């Protein structure tokens, strides 16, 4: 993995954390307290299906990136990191 890719991925992670905190109004969390591999649903951030729909819309709106509506979507929604990797991959299709 190149340094540029790692840096790009880190930037996407930060943007996603900021979006989650601000747009989902996560009162108990800040960008700094969310770990890179924080789990989104059930544990970790303890998001629910209402948040899932909102995340889908946020990714479409801010990154023009879709989440596949299948098992792969479930894997992408596992953590901040898996979400960021999906977004980064779609923003940089030749960089995988």
């Amino acid at each position: 993995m190149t340094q540029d890719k790692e840096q790009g991925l880190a930037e996407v992670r930060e943007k996603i954390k900021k979006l989650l905190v601000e747009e989902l109004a996560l009162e108990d969390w800040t960008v700094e307290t969310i770990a890179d591999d924080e789990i989104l649903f059930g544990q970790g951030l303890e998001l629910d299906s209402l948040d899932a729909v909102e995340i889908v819309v946020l990714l479409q709106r801010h990154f023009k990136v879709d989440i596949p509506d299948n098992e792969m979507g479930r894997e992408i929604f596992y953590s901040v990191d898996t979400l960021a990797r999906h977004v980064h991959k779609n923003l940089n299709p030749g960089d995988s």
Partner: protein
Amino acid sequence: MTTRADATGRHRKRGNRLGFWFFKATIRLFGLRGAYGLVHLVCLHYLFFDRQSVEATMAYIRRRFPGRGYMARILGVYRILVNQGKSLVDRYYLISGLGTFEYEVQGYDEIKRILKDSDKGLVLLTAHVGNWQVTMNSLGRLDNTVRLLMRPEDNAAVKETLDVYPHGDKVKTISTASFMGGMIECAKALDNGELVSIMGDRIYGADWTTARILGAEARFPHAAFTLAAATERPVVVVLSGKISTKKYSVDLSHIIRTRYTSRKDRQKDIEKWVQEYATILEEYSGEYPYQWYLFHDIWAGAERQAPPPGHGGDGS
């Protein structure tokens, strides 16, 4: 012709392609009225042998007409079954290209204005009052693709009828059988300016909220509201009633605006929107009391604690 839930919550198929073919042939041979006559006979069969359907309809009749005796209630159930059968006949009449229906549409201009003001779509919240399939046809003038959130795998024949709607490929389906109950596709469709149609009086999974209707708490799916709130699009309640053999009244005038007041109050917000829908539905179905067909008893189990929105069910 329809599907119904068994004791485990799954939906048993009712009707098949042969049945549909038979109805189509009858319409061609004897016209609408002839087919309606056949419906009366077929519904006698359902009245005597389709226990679940009768129970669901009786749950409604009992609350709609609380003072009525048993025989009057049974007659009420029969009238509803017949009207449901007629709505299926009307659908095939339309699909077969044998004729059209006249519509009296209320609220059309406001919807057109909303769509004109934005390149995004809106959520249509329907119910089994009147004939939602025929109502979809009346929306053809809007020039927007309509996406129906449904389980097409329930009945292949029903899906076929959607594929040959008079407005061609403008009516499509989104399956609930995906990891987020079709919500991702719905959000995309709204973003593309399409209309997403969701059934408001039929629950498939555990994603429901209770609201008071006809004097008691009942269960309603809330996916339309969670989708609308996330995408910041309005919910248009779509209701219809058959007013004569070839004429329907379509009401699009009720628009529910959804915006969460705060994260911690999301459940309360959803309950408020669902109650608003239930109140509209109660009043409208009062105008057409024998035209609301329920696939299951929406009051059953509603007194239990409703699952908080966002925990389990189709949408998760």
